[in-house]
């Protein structure tokens, strides 16, 4: 990381007015991100913040970082291209549950196994909000929505268990019910040297069910710290993660105590190693000389 200097949360807030509904959980998420960025102190121009499509994917525009609001489900492929092209950047990716676990659901497993140093924040509200209330990949079975008028017949994806099972080095869950805790978790995720996943239970005030609003979430929330969970214990984390949907555990499920080398760091090594004695690129056609 390059030299850091003093920044405050407001230095990361842009002039754009969010399109979100009043009371949307995503307001708290962007606040949490401002605070985490300020705590880390990288200047905004050294941060690339990438998203897909959905209400929550508007989030990069509300920061002063370089933002890229891409296409549906593809925040991660684009974010990894940015990180591999310039490993010095701090790269954040964000989006909703539909973006990350439905249309873009194939990418996260590969980001995890590559261990590229990107922090991925999913604002999980169990509904498609931007298209006005359809079933999402994290909606509970039986849920009635405009595309499941007789109740959903399918089980939800479990984002926590999914990322843990693929071997993510950092998996955590946060919620607007605890803004201070959320900012701290996002900061810890960004500081983790490798791929980090934060699932944020962020209620949809317009299409969300009563039980998923702040009051309902508070009722099922439990702090992992208070439970005495050891974040170095991956199996215990998986055990707890099974309660996704019925309980809301907040905090760090798993943090690899011995983070392995990241993909992006290894690229640097390879570039340095192989550039020794290479032909200048003006002479690259010499590779084709047959004598």
């Amino acid at each position, binding site marked *: 990381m390059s030299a850091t200097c003093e920044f405050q949360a407001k230095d990361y807030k842009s002039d754009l007015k969010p399109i979100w509904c009043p009371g949307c959980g995503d307001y708290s998420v962007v606040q949490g991100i401002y605070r985490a960025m300020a705590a880390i102190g990288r200047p905004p121009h050294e941060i690339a913040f990438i998203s897909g499509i959905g209400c929550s994917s508007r989030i990069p525009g509300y920061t002063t970082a*370089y933002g*890229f609001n*891409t296409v549906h489900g593809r925040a991660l*492929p684009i974010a990894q291209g940015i990180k591999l092209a310039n490993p010095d950047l701090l790269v954040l990716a964000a989006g909703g549950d539909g973006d990350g676990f439905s249309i873009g659901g194939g990418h996260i497993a590969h980001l995890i196994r590559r261990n590229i140093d990107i922090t991925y924040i999913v604002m999980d509200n169990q509904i498609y909000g931007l298209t006005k209330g359809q079933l999402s990949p994290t909606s509970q079975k039986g849920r009635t929505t405009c595309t499941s008028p007789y109740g959903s017949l399918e089980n939800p994806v479990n984002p926590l268990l999914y990322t843990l099972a693929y071997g993510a080095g950092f998996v955590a869950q946060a919620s607007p019910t605890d803004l201070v805790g959320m900012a701290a978790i996002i900061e810890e995720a960004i500081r983790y040297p490798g791929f980090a996943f934060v699932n944020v239970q962020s209620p949809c005030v317009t299409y969300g069910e009563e039980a998923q609003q702040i009051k309902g979430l508070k009722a099922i929330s439990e702090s992992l710290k208070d439970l005495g969970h050891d974040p170095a214990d991956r199996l215990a984390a998986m055990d707890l993660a099974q309660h996704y949907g019925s309980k809301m555990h907040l905090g760090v499920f798993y943090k690899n105590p011995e983070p392995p080398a990241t993909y992006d760091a290894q690229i640097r090594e390879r570039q340095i190693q192989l550039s020794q004695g290479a032909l200048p690129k003006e002479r*690259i*056609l010499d590779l084709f000389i047959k004598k």
Partner: protein
Amino acid sequence: MRKDLVFGMAGSGGDGIVSAGDSLLQAASAEGYHGVMTKSFGSQIRGGESSCRVRISTDPVLNPGGNLDVAVALNWEDFLKFGAELPVAGTTVVIYEAATGVPENQIPLVGVTPLQVIAVPIAAMAKETAGTERAKNTVVLGLIAGWFGIGAVAVMKGISRKLAKKSQELVEANQKAFDAGMAFAKEHPLKADMTIVPSEGKGGVKLLTDGNDMCAAAAIFAGCQFFGGYPITPSTEIMQFFTNHVWKYGGAVLQAEDEIAGIGAAVGASFAGKKAMTATSGPGLSLKSEMMGLASIAELPLVIVDVQRGGPSTGLPTKTEQSDLFAAAFSAHGDVIRPVLAPTSVADTFRTTIEAFNIAEYYQTPVIILSDQEIASRKETLDPIDTSQFKIINRLAPTGSDLQDYKRFKQTENHISPISHPGMLGGTYLASGIEHVESGAPTNSGSVHARMNDKRIKKFDPLKERKDLFEITGNPNAPLALVAWGSVAGVCREALQMAREQGLDVKLMVPYLLYPVAEQTYRDFFASVQKGLVVEQSHLAQTFKVLRMHLDLPKGLQSLARSGANPFLPGEIVVALHHLLSELQRSHEGKLQPQE
């Protein structure tokens, strides 16, 4: 004696027929000849049929040639599977494996009497001399050296270099097999002298490579530092070349989880300020179309190589076709112009790839290179290229004053806005697929959308004026014309030479820029044209239709179009031109005469 020879050889996967072709081309190149080699396979990985076509000439070679001068069949079943890819005519010497048991007067080629047919006990000779039938391809090379005068020394030099790593015994065994082939040829002279004219030692340094490797090398030369892609035939070698070399130049490669992530990573790398590319073939191009639209609206430079194969869907994965023009020009929704370029040979793949990067960077746009299976996998001997003559263009960077109040999508006179990238102080902005105002902030405004569409479309006007992206040969006022691009262009170049030698007044246009359609350049070209042919390997005649969409074509301009994997022969194009001329003469009641 001959100045030019076309060999076509076919056998089963394990027969080493393609490696024999490689050795022959390398030897010819070492002896100073020009050459081209194309390969064609069934889609089996092991076994199945495989073939190659090698053309060797004292003059630069324009295409893999028409009818074969020499056909080699290690078995008839596999040879026949290639049909029109290995055309035998009355001028062909046919050499085949005697163990097939087929009598020389009963070979299974319908409706043609070859110049000469010779059964050779190739497998038996290999077994007898080298102790294994695996040396069959070396026997074939010996026969070729004996009968046609190519590679008597250089072939064995090449083989020895290759095999010496394994064992000296293997080298000696192959030398015996080669000598046996040579001796057989001496004992059974051909009826006609078909030895090649000596190359007069015009050897010197030559390059030998194929279109995919050339494309990747050109990209690195142009400054490309990121490749994101997914393996797909017949483009994969581009990614392989990158992963072997780009690290040395500070770049990186990602073999992504799918085609979408491959181009996505390249879009990301471009956003991060690096020159980036992806490569694919038809099915991958279909998958990448949404990302191409994103790169267009976010005005990000990006090069996408589509090595065309037969389609739709999986189609003919190992055979060439020119049926992706519509997809290249028009896939992805919305009103958008995406430049499409096409190389016509391995040699000009270097220039075309550099142009693609220059156009992508200058206009801040995705650019598609439409290569095809034939160019991608064919090997050509090339004279060394003076790389210092190629200018490299980089994207327009913001100046200090631009960064005072930075507007990423600022309206400018030429519609091109300075582009920053993450890490640049003062340049932060929001890139997006959403319509945006000049700062990059999202908007829903219809009037802004109209203005921004205008910017993104009008910026390409100067590109349509570029005459240097078109090759026009022949009499500029000729009444007859040919239009062809990609690998078919080489066939038409040869057809043009033949037609002019036969007194036809004809000209040829080869566009390297396929889209946007350079309307005025075509209008000027067609001004004198009364009859002509647009020649292409596309059943739907996509090129003809794209031209018709943009221009009023001359009434006499016709389409000569067919499905892929059925190569055009220069001779048939000349015959078609003669037909056009006689139509023209009839319609003019003899007013127009062919040239003396």
